């Protein structure tokens, strides 16, 4: 992180994409999708507050570096193919 007087700008100017912050460490429950059951409706992608679900031909692909494990995706899934698994198991 830039820190010295000469390195920093005159006022904080934000330029670094927040993806460098791995918020996945906050997660207590990990979403796991049973892609066999997935109907590719993309409700999980649509409602993810952490932009941590990518769309693929096989179903949602989780970005576990950033997913905080809120469980919205499992809750909105119409076929209930997403399960929240405790991280310590």
């Amino acid at each position, binding site marked *: *992180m*830039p820190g010295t007087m000469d390195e920093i700008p005159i006022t*904080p*100017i*934000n*330029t*670094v*994409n*927040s*993806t*460098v*912050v*791995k*918020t996945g460490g*906050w997660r207590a429950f990990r979403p796991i999708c049973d892609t066999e059951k997935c109907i*590719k409706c*993309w409700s999980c*992608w*649509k*409602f993810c*507050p*952490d*932009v*941590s679900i990518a*769309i693929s*031909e096989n179903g949602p692909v989780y*970005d576990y*570096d*950033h997913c*905080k*494990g*809120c*469980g*919205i995706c*499992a*809750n*909105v899934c119409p076929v209930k193919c997403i399960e*929240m698994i405790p991280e310590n198991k």
Partner: protein
Amino acid sequence: MMAKLTIPEEELMSPGHMGCLGCGATQAMRYVLKAAGKRTILSIPACCWAVMPGVWPNTCLQVPELYTPFETTGASISGIRAALDALGQEDINVIGFAGDGGTADIGIQALSGTADREDDVLYIMYDNEAYMNTGIQRSGSTPLGTWTTTTPVGVKGDWEKSPKKNVTAIMAAHGIPYIATATTGYPEDLIRKVKKALSIKGTKFIQIFSPCPTGWKMDPALTVSITKEALSTRAFNLFEIENGVYRITMKPKKTPLKEYLMKQGRFRHMPDDLIAKVEAGLDTAYENLLHLEEFTQKKAGSSQ
């Protein structure tokens, strides 16, 4: 992409932000940026969103953003628009993105000034019904009966004593061309309203009902489903006011308020008589809205 999507695929909000688990306000930002696109300048006052993009030098926002003092959102977006006009820069959306306290309370004077001048900006109030960034204190937008850290239940029942401030009515009184309410549980509707607002010249105002699992003492997984219950209980209503004409954009079948309240720790203390009083107030407000819709639409139809 082969997938059939109901909202734009482009993301202008990145992961790695500081929003809590299941934060509705982050969904609101994600959808607003999807609707507004890259040619947008955001102004954000003190609120959850002043922190959530990230600590310097990080940001989750892929549009230029200006952080400002708490009460200045209206003035700030007016200043940005005036500068763009002075510099001859056209086709740029200027959006203020403020919380309910920053809008209904401390920021209402500057917002009123902006609306009064008819400055060409969109003001978005993301409404999580309390000062959440500072730790769940009541705001003007906190509903009757709510527990917050400044409206404790205690032994005296010092919960919130006044109903939610009607900010859209205040904005309607300014005669601005477009006012809407939306919620994060219905992103297609939200995005349509933001796009519509940005297609209109003048001051536009959208209030986005954005659940806050942390402040509402609620399971974060319920962020989406709770908005549906908010609508069916009339705790929040979806409508737009275009040039004074009201249109209720969703009229769900009524469900009992108590079911909505009991899913949230902030309401669980409420005795039945208080719930009945709140429910009666919400039903009256909804009836008033229906009458406004009927009256303004009839008037608009007859004047054509």
